[in-house]
């Protein structure tokens, strides 16, 4: 019994370990992969990724925090619907999200068509489209974590502070936010990681163009599918994304540790 558990556990661990070992090994083994890391197009993709994810995470915080708070305190009519709606992008395949975004904000979309008719502006193929795609798939992760964080804050504490004369905004800033800090940060990191890894919705909704909409994951696909960087480029870009993911996880772990103490 113990042996079976040990074997299953080892196999499971190896299953997750080997792909990363393979990636690192390939990057070390193939000098072209290291060369590709220095290619200007890699820096461009990194810049696009950082720029777009910064904006989409900011938008997620800006719109997601009030939504999460309202959902946690159940003060919204139709809150259950909003709750279910926000879960949908988490379980939905990103490619479906991309198609759905086109039907709403594309040039022939419900909102996209009248907007283009009025202003001449179209969303697809722009950096804004990348941000929209990222926000659509990633913000729900933040809202979910933030909502759980707010729910864990005792409403009594907020009520007491209110009786002592603090304004609602003051209570939120000084009582609620600090108490929910851990889950909020965890949500932020998850949201950022998801936005950084976004591929399917972006490819369909925003397309792929170097210097405009081609983020790191899209650059991996372009390199793999015969782009000038080739497979070594795909390996190099993957390594870069892996390093970013590890860094994000490290931040999360560190914050969790500090939150516990």
């Amino acid at each position: 019994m113990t042996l079976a558990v040990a074997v299953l556990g080892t196999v499971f661990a190896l299953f997750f370990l080997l792909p990363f070992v393979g990636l690192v090994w390939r990057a070390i083994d193939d000098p072209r992969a290291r060369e590709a890391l220095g290619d200007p197009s890699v820096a461009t993709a990194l810049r696009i990724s950082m720029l777009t994810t910064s904006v989409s995470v900011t938008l997620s915080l800006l719109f997601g925090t009030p939504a999460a708070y309202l959902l946690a305190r159940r003060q919204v009519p139709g809150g259950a619907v909003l709750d279910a709606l926000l879960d949908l992008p988490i379980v939905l395949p990103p490619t479906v999200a991309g198609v759905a975004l086109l039907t709403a904000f594309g040039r022939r979309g419900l909102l996209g068509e009248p907007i283009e008719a009025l202003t001449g502006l179209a969303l697809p193929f722009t950096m804004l489209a990348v941000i929209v795609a990222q926000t659509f798939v990633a913000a729900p992760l933040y809202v979910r974590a933030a909502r759980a964080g707010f729910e864990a804050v005792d409403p009594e504490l907020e009520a007491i502070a209110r009786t002592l004369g603090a304004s609602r905004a003051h209570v939120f800033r000084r009582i609620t936010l600090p108490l929910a800090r851990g889950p909020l940060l965890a949500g932020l990191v998850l949201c950022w990681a998801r936005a950084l890894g976004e591929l399917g919705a972006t490819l369909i909704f925003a397309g792929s163009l170097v210097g405009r909409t081609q983020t790191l994951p899209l650059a991996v696909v372009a390199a793999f599918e015969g782009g000038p960087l080739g497979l070594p480029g795909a390996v190099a870009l993957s390594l870069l994304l892996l390093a970013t993911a590890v860094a994000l996880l490290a931040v999360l772990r560190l914050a969790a540790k500090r939150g516990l103490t």
Partner: protein
Amino acid sequence: MRALACLILTVVVLGVVGCQATPSTPSADEVNGEVVVSAASSLTEAFSDTAKAFEAKYPRTKVTLNFASSAALATQINEGAPADIFASADRVQMDNVKAERKSAPGVVFALNRLVIAKPKGSPAVATYADLAKPNVKVVLAADGVPVGTYATQSLAAAEKSAAFGTGFQARVIANVRSREANVRAVLTKVQLGEADAAIVYSTDVATAPEVEPVAIPDAYNVTSEYVIAPLTAGKNARAASAFVAFVRSPEGQALLSQRGFTIPAR
């Protein structure tokens, strides 16, 4: 003892050589099992027809089709993907497949031409020159994807002519909004109405009712060559060579011709 070893060796060698020398049209019973065909996206409909006809001719076979850009397929094959056949939309990607991965050199089996695809009734683009008009949303295939390479060749040819002039290519490239992974992804952007124009194969336009063609003049057009080769990673060498032979047979060529491909002179 040594003589015996020599004899055995000779028999084995003769046997192997004999196998390779088998005529390319074996009987229907000898050809069986699964044949995995990795083919360029633009062959989607044509090779679906081919597979059906091949299975009808060799009832004990099952053809599995895998469509993607030739560039992506070449990468997969070099990484050891277990395909029996590679049908590439250009020579470049066939040459990118390492020699030891191919069990026979590639042969040209079909030709195609480039055309501009635009959403039906869209006024944005009426001629090839219109691709360079300001604010026309153009979508091309990515670098390395054959139709992207051919499109670049065509634009470069136009650039050299007096009718289009210097800067034409740069103006079109400035209009490019996206570089898609394969020709069908390019076409989809036009079908959706997101792109005003795209450069695809003439055979692709026929598959999309929402799209209409704008001709690219012969002087700037490019004839694309489809190249097919059996692969060493495949498990079914006999069926693979039968498939290649079938594609190049009058019956196979007629199927391609029905889908709008041009048949190369033999």
